[in-house]
């Protein structure tokens, strides 16, 4: 299987704080890859270094065979990105935002079709800010898919969504996976990770503490539920219990 993302010995520090410490990653074509960890574990920094929007201090990064900082324009012809917080012009409408993104690519997907497919086809004349949380997240999946990408980055796509909206997004991602697209995601919901991800990497204070499949994580920690395995590996369990007992 072909490697779509390859990261070797990547480190990044902000002043004295080592945000990412010697990380290695390999994502294979057509898989869903989950990057997990507590807030501040270094997930966003890792994604940003992979995308080239931040410069790593050391290490080798290759995405679709490109160096993301040197070949930015060629790389993003085939990569879709959804950032943790959605960014858009204050008064912009759905149609205008889609049009602005679509026009930047050589052969974009039909954004009207995508909007219809994701259930926001009747909202294209609305202002983006007037959409509900779930609709907005679906719009941002549409935007990430407009390039007809081989690879999409989805950073905490389902944070802030209700249970039903979350399930709708899962369904969309499952369908996407069937088309052969590679998905790199971060998430705080372990049920979601278990349902979607072929491989995961757990970060703790910038270091990789686990690398493999969900099943392997459960076996390694001897846990039945992946959430327990995650908490044990990410070292959040002790803290979580402490907080729990301190509050009662």
């Amino acid at each position, binding site marked *: 299987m072909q490697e779509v993302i390859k990261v070797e010995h990547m480190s990044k520090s902000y002043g004295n704080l080592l945000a990412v410490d010697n990380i290695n990653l390999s994502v294979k074509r057509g898989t869903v890859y989950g990057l997990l960890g507590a807030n501040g574990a270094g997930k966003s920094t890792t994604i940003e270094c992979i*995308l080239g*929007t931040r410069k790593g201090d050391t290490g080798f990064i290759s995405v679709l065979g490109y160096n993301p900082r040197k070949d*930015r*324009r*060629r790389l*993003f*012809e085939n*990569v879709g*990105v959804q*950032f943790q*917080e959605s*960014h*858009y*012009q*204050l*008064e*912009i409408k759905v149609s*205008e935002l889609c*049009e*602005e*993104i679509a*026009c*930047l*690519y050589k052969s974009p997907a039909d954004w009207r079709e995508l909007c219809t497919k994701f259930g926001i086809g009747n909202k294209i004349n609305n202002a983006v800010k007037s959409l509900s949380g779930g609709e907005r997240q679906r719009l941002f999946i549409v935007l990430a898919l407009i*390039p007809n990408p081989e690879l999409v980055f989805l950073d905490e796509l389902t944070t802030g969504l209700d249970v039903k909206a979350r399930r709708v997004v899962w369904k969309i991602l499952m369908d996407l996976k069937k088309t052969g697209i590679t998905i790199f995601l971060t998430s705080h919901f372990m049920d979601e990770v278990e349902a979607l991800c072929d491989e995961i990497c757990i970060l703790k204070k910038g270091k990789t503490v686990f690398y493999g499949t969900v099943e392997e994580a459960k076996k390694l920690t001897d846990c039945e539920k992946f959430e327990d395995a995650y908490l044990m590996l990410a070292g959040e369990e002790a803290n979580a219990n402490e907080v729990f007992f301190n509050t009662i």
Partner: protein
Amino acid sequence: MRSFLILFKNELKLNIRNMNMVIFAIIMPVIVQLIIGMLNGTNPAFEGAGYTFMELSFGALCTISICAGGLMGLPILVAEYRERKILKRFQVTPVSPIKLLTVELTIYILYCFLSMISLFITSKLFWKLSVQGSWLGFLASWILTMISTFSVGMMVGGLAKNSKTASIYASFLYFPMLVFSGTTFPYELMPVGVQKIVRLFPITQGIQLMKAAFLGLPLDNIFLSVVVMGMITLICTGIAVRYFKWE
């Protein structure tokens, strides 16, 4: 080219929806012109002058929109797009930063052009304005003034950390230039000391050039004006490009 036009169309729509530039670059210059016109009518600029006060002020009126676009609109927009991480969104697409900035620049150029046309039409209709000098010379000076002022705006937008600091820097440039460069108050009536300082403003030089070209007056330091504006354009554009940041 297709992507340029689509971006231009949508960004222009957003800009008009915002209304700031419509008010400060299109409506405000006409209001100032109406006031000047009501006060002076078609009287000569001073006793024995071969041109009216309106003709004397035409160049200065045209710089109101240049100031609004170049020193307020453009830098605040660029800083705001950076602060709201809209530029970062564009960073993960194949678009080049130069194309994006050119789109925004073109929008502000359009405002300045529309302002000049509307000022010309109203003054032609109501106060029989006529170009005594050279239209071409006037246009060339207008373009030079606009480019040099916009380059200042690009630099400010590039260097400001967020839209708040951008609007503070912008106010520091906008108001002195609007008041002291001859846009609203004639340069000739200022104390010599002040004249020496404001001579460094691109707008001051631009107004002198436009005035001379419009009225067909001889201008002895045309070379100096062009050099000042050219230098400002080069330095500010250089800094803006060198320090451009998506985020």
